[in-house]
């Protein structure tokens, strides 16, 4: 029997469940190695070569190189592991989050200072279109 996944209809959200954790295992474990400053240096010097040391799919590697975090989420990446890439790129967690929303850093910051993104219209997929 399939697992119950009642969270599948939350819009703009990828839940890091068993399937995603398995799919993204090597993406995330690669990110872990960036906690060591020597690895950060080696990665930045030749990203493709560093990524080729990992049994990741070509799509996963390309998404890392592109810093396409929404694509990486679909391919099993998790944001707490992305944090290692954020620090490698010297960007803050808020800057990283802004990237995934498609907003500019300034607009995202203004939204947060203004109280954050409202849950209204953001609870169920398709809610905005229907409502």
């Amino acid at each position: 029997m399939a697992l119950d996944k009642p969270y599948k209809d939350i819009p703009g959200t990828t839940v890091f469940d068993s399937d995603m954790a398995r799919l993204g295992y090597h993406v995330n474990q690669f990110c872990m190695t960036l906690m060591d400053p020597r690895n950060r240096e080696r990665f930045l010097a030749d990203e493709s070569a560093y990524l080729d040391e990992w049994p990741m799919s070509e799509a996963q590697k390309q998404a890392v190189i592109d810093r396409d975090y929404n694509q990486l989420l679909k391919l099993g990446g998790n944001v707490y592991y992305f944090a290692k890439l954020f620090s490698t790129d010297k960007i803050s967690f808020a800057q990283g989050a802004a990237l995934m929303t498609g907003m500019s850093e300034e607009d995202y910051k203004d939204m947060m200072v203004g109280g954050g993104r409202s849950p209204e219209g953001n609870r169920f997929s398709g809610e905005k279109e229907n409502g």
Partner: protein
Amino acid sequence: MARLTAGVAMSHVPAIGVAVDLDKTDEPYWKPLFAGFDFSKDWIARQKPDVIFLVYNDHASAFGLETIPTFAIGCAEEFEIADEGWGPRPVPNVKGAPDLAWHVRQAVIQDNFDLTTVNEMKVDHGLTVPLTLMYGQPAQWPCLVIPFAVNVIVYPPPSGQRCFELGKAIRSAVESFDQDLNVQIWGTGGMSHQLQGPRAGLINHEFDNNFLDGIVSDPESLASIPHVDYMREAGSEGVELVMWLVMRGALDSDVNEVHRHYHVPASNTAVGHIILENK
């Protein structure tokens, strides 16, 4: 015997630690957040807990995906500060309370909660930011700490009900320890926030304030909230709030609320803080 006297809950946003470490707490962005902890610093200076049982989550610092303990109790003499990619925070190492930790571990496992025992573990902002918020920047932390890490990253975290019941078991275990110690339990993380995907930045003021009310007077109802409701209503990372229920389970059913604070935002997150004393 050891006494469990009070519970404290608060968010543990990394940017809060950065603001303190870089001396930005008086900036307009940060000032209202830190003002809500002025009372708390005075309060804890009066309370002088000997040991903090600190419920938090590791953020892929000590635990990657190679081992994912649902509940892990730190039993070591000392815990070093993790390097989360920007160098370790400039805060003192955390001194453990191994005698009490090993005691609690044995009692709680015998009470049917299958904890993982950890003797080597670095601690990240999830643990150090709460200490900073309550104690400021001392040369040494004025208390011993038992780090208690809960998996909230790889779905599913433990249920709210399980966390609440675990809190009760921790309380019994602490109070069967044969030393006169003043022990507090802290629950950290939350409140509403989402760090990932197009919906990042979600904040739910109503959910958070209802949760703050409920943690005081109706934790049983909060304990029955399913994970999906946290994620839908309070953001995918809002599910961290189950850790507050461990804290609440360890307190009397009837408690005194001595302080409350709520502020949006700290970076991506709604910051909630509450202090509860056993009567």
